[in-house]
């Protein structure tokens, strides 16, 4: 179901035994593209325990993003995707702390939408909440219609829409002008790193950092170009860390640091040395391809660090 020109909402029917999620949580989606399974995380935007058992995630196309382009362009009714369990600590406390302030930008609205829908479904409706939603233009504003409908139905919920093309770049000083009581509000924010950083800074200067709750979507790591530097490698089993350059196999770097690692042929054929990459990116020394951590298995004997990484070995 399209939301804007570059975002869609996917309605999924989990198989039996999928646990009930909490609003604000995300789920890992495994999508097979050209025979290869890719995992990405998306916030759940539907309320928990729907009678039809379905759940929704909303996906915005990321330029050059393999999975989001596939889902926005090619998702069809009846398509099968793998589903992880709901996870994430970006969840409203119970009992609810009020009053509330939501700050969302772009697809950062998705976890908040899950929260708002769940709150709106309570008998008491939405509590005292101010919501600032930032989008480049009205056409790009995900859930704009739904948010306006919530505003009409729930008098204590106030929506401010900020559109870059009309209102210019949003600055944190806006809070003082338009929501003077913001330091009293328990604030939930999701959006690009720059926005979240400026909010963090502002809350820290006020001495209320605990009032601010953030959800950071994983930053897109730029693919390292050939000749790029390596990075710090953390071997999780032993806890050892070592600096590795971009041409030394992880296996060799680890062994030089005295880490006991499984190994075999040391030429990329026997799979004795594989370990699960938990974070960061590695470069395949044979092909130059860069693989990002999506919990995938890498062969340490032919992979080098492309930036800081963590590996389950």
């Amino acid at each position, binding site marked *: 179901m399209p939301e804007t020109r570059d975002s869609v909402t996917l309605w999924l029917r989990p198989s039996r035994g999928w646990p009930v999620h909490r609003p604000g949580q995300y789920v890992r989606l495994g999508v097979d593209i050209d025979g290869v399974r890719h995992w990405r995380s998306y916030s759940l935007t539907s309320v928990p325990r729907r009678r039809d058992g379905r759940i929704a995630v909303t996906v915005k196309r990321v330029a050059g993003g393999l999975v989001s382009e596939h889902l926005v362009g090619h998702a069809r009714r009846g398509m099968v995707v793998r589903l992880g369990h709901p996870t994430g600590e970006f969840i409203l406390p119970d009992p609810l702390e009020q009053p509330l302030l939501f700050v969302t930008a772009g697809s950062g609205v998705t976890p908040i939408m899950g929260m708002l829908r769940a709150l709106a479904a309570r008998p008491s409706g939405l509590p005292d909440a101010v919501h600032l939603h930032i989008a480049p233009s009205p056409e790009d504003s995900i859930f704009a219609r739904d948010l306006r409908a919530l505003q009409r139905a729930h008098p204590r919920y106030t929506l401010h829409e900020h559109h870059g093309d009309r209102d210019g770049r949003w600055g944190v000083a806006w809070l003082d002008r338009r929501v003077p009581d913001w330091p009293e509000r328990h604030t939930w924010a999701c959006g690009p790193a720059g926005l979240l950083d400026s909010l963090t800074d502002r809350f820290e200067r006020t001495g209320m950092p605990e009032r601010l709750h953030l959800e950071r979507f994983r930053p897109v790591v730029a693919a390292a170009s050939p000749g790029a530097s390596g990075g710090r490698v953390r071997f999780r089993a032993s806890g050892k860390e070592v600096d590795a350059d971009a041409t030394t196999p992880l296996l060799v770097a680890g062994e030089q640091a005295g880490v006991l690692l499984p190994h*075999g042929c040391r030429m990329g054929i026997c799979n004795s040395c*594989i370990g699960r990459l938990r974070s960061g990116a590695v470069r395949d020394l044979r092909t130059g391809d860069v693989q990002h951590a999506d919990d995938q*298995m890498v062969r340490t004997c032919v992979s080098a660090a492309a930036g800081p990484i963590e590996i389950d070995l």
Partner: protein
Amino acid sequence: MNPALEHLTPDDLDDIGRELDAIRDELMADLGERDAAYIRKVVKVQRGLEGAGRAALLVSLFPPAWLAGTTALAVAKVLENMEIGHNVMHGQWDWMRDPEIHSTTWEWDSVSAAEGWKKSHNYEHHTYTNIVGKDRDLGYTLLRLDPDQPWKPFHLTQPLYNIVLALAFEWGVALYDLELDEARKGRKPWSGVVSDVKRLGRKAARQITKDYVAWPLLAGPSAAPALLGSLTANVVRNVWTHTVIFCGHFPDGAETFDFDETALDDESRGSWYVRQMLGSCNIDGPPVMHLMTGNLSYQIEHHLFPDLPSNRYAEVAPRVRALCERYGLPYVSGSLPNQYGQVLRKILRMSLPGGGKPAPAPALQT
């Protein structure tokens, strides 16, 4: 230097290495939906056959049901071990990142446990292929198949012993994974053997329970024929896999190598490739035979690219053969009866001392 390699210059070897690397990269880059659909289909067919076979054996007091069930189960077990298990455990399908078809999670329908087999096979056999004394591949550990292996009196029994091995092949593989020979030589701690024996015990118990207790019990009045059906299917699978695997490295024309550790350390990518090609033999036959051998009928291509999905070996074979022709390298290939006949002849000949090629006549001094 092996005589078959003598006409190649170091530059030739480097060129061969580059060419084969390029073929590998090209194919790996081309993997996609079609390949994923292939392996999922093979898995589906295999499960269907296994299910149908077991179901038929439940009513196997009726002789046609016994025959159909046993046949289906035997084919299913062959497919599982060869085209699926062996190749999945090589990591050929790891690129799909599907945990259900992944080298780290697959456990095959055999008494040998995946974990031990992956080490002895993927690492020791595929890295040290056909190096006398280093390649612990089954044949060289249990039999004398090369004149450079010292003859011992017990080799006299190997023609008979080989038949027993064929019938009980999965047990031979499982015992070989324990590396008792390595432990005797002090290269493996006995504590390691003990933990491997425990692992084998657990896996074997599971296999025996499944094939010879659980399913026969389910069959009720058909218990005895059902048990016999499972046993027959296992033996058929054993004999077939033994045949295919022995045709991989032991027919005439396959080279063995006398390398020491330094020679191995200095071995270039190109000469590693050449050793893999010279030490392996293909089997010619129709597509269904290739499928039933798990495409190990393309043993040469498998040894060059052990982690390339097996459904691609057929298309890469003509290119490898052409490369061999260009560089004057042998590319050994023959029909199954022909190749297996040569293996049996070698087992017979090597049961007796000697068997090496006659030494060349001394050159006349002038």
